[in-house]
């Protein structure tokens, strides 16, 4: 995992994402999900390009099932954009970089 992508868990989610000063993008993933791995390099690239503007985090739904449950996640990969603790956008499936980028642009 690239240095710019922060691994968050059920325990750290509130402090790192909901109370983050920066807008945050959280990638909900699991090791058994092929498209999650497919989208990995795109998320890492965005983390690098948006460093200082957007906090990019990954949450493993197997290790931390509580948080995806709270957000009603029943499909992965799911990317959720948070601003001031609120959900501002949600993307499901392995989509292209430009698709994620347009969502990020709206948030910053």
């Amino acid at each position, binding site marked *: 995992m690239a240095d710019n992508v922060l691994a968050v868990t059920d325990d750290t989610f509130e402090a790192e994402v909901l109370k983050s000063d920066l807008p945050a993008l959280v990638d909900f993933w*699991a090791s*058994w*999900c*092929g*498209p*999650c*791995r*497919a*989208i*990995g*390099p*795109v998320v890492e*690239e965005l983390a690098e390009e948006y460093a200082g503007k957007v906090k990019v985090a990954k949450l493993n739904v197997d290790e931390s099932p509580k948080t995806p449950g709270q957000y*009603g*996640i*029943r*499909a*992965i*990969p*799911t990317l959720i954009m948070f601003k001031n603790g609120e959900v501002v956008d*949600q993307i*499901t*499936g*392995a989509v*292209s*970089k*430009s698709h994620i980028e347009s969502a990020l642009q709206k948030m910053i």
Partner: protein
Amino acid sequence: MEARELVIVGGGPAGLTAGLYAARARLDAVLIERLSPGGQMLTTDMVENWPGDLEAVSGFDLSDRMRKHAQHFGLEIVNNEVSAIAIDGEHKIINTPKGDIRCKALILCPGASPRKLGVPGEAELTGKGVSYCGTCDGPFYREQEVACVGGGDTAAEEALFLTKFAKKVFLIHRRDQLRATGILAERVMQNDKIEVLWSQAPLAFQGEKGVESVRIRRLKDNSEYDLAVQGAFVFVGTVPNTQFLDGLVEMDGQGFIITDKKQETSLPGVFAAGDCCAKILRQIVTAAGDGATAAFAAQRYLEE
């Protein structure tokens, strides 16, 4: 502008095989993939019909092996996205957000994506119970009841996969027999957790925060009812990922690219391989075959 002899667009089995052959032919080639290499193999649980692998191999592992194989012989793979392609005399210009690439020969392997049903509630509930990938989302349905739509190989394979998690899988199929290949149809019929709803079609996906039921029509008498399920998986064929070509090469009415026996399209020096092509069988093995042919034909084209 970056210049290459050959550009391969897409890194599924067609593109990776084309890349392997191009690398071994010592062509100056680059493969462009927008995600990680593998294509639809990445959403395939187990591949049982890849010749030589009697022990079923996971789609993810096969993707990885094909990528490593091509790279071992020197193929360059870059993570980038093709936005459009233009023609400049004998050269093809590939537009990407990271700059343009000029090449003499081009192999298009953009693949295909799951077809949507186009019924009410489908778009709204996608990711909230409506899914096109059992291997991604199946584990969210442990001990729940789900519906699966379709009757082909993918629908049969995915329904079987979903029985590992769901306590009951309803397979909704519009005909009175499965189209899936014999061995898969047999397994579906023998599985106690699968109930096939013959000659029925989904009309809508219903639910507030997530899927709660599927509205179904019995095609024999046109009666309707609601089937209570927590998830609905749709496997009703594929659509080609050829929109970005904007009619550059000849396609059939559904957008599949028309090629000849050399995998060449209507434009000289532009080849196509894999699921994006108009053909009767879309499998990993046929995609790999197309890719090898396209790379060989591209080499011939470059030599002329």
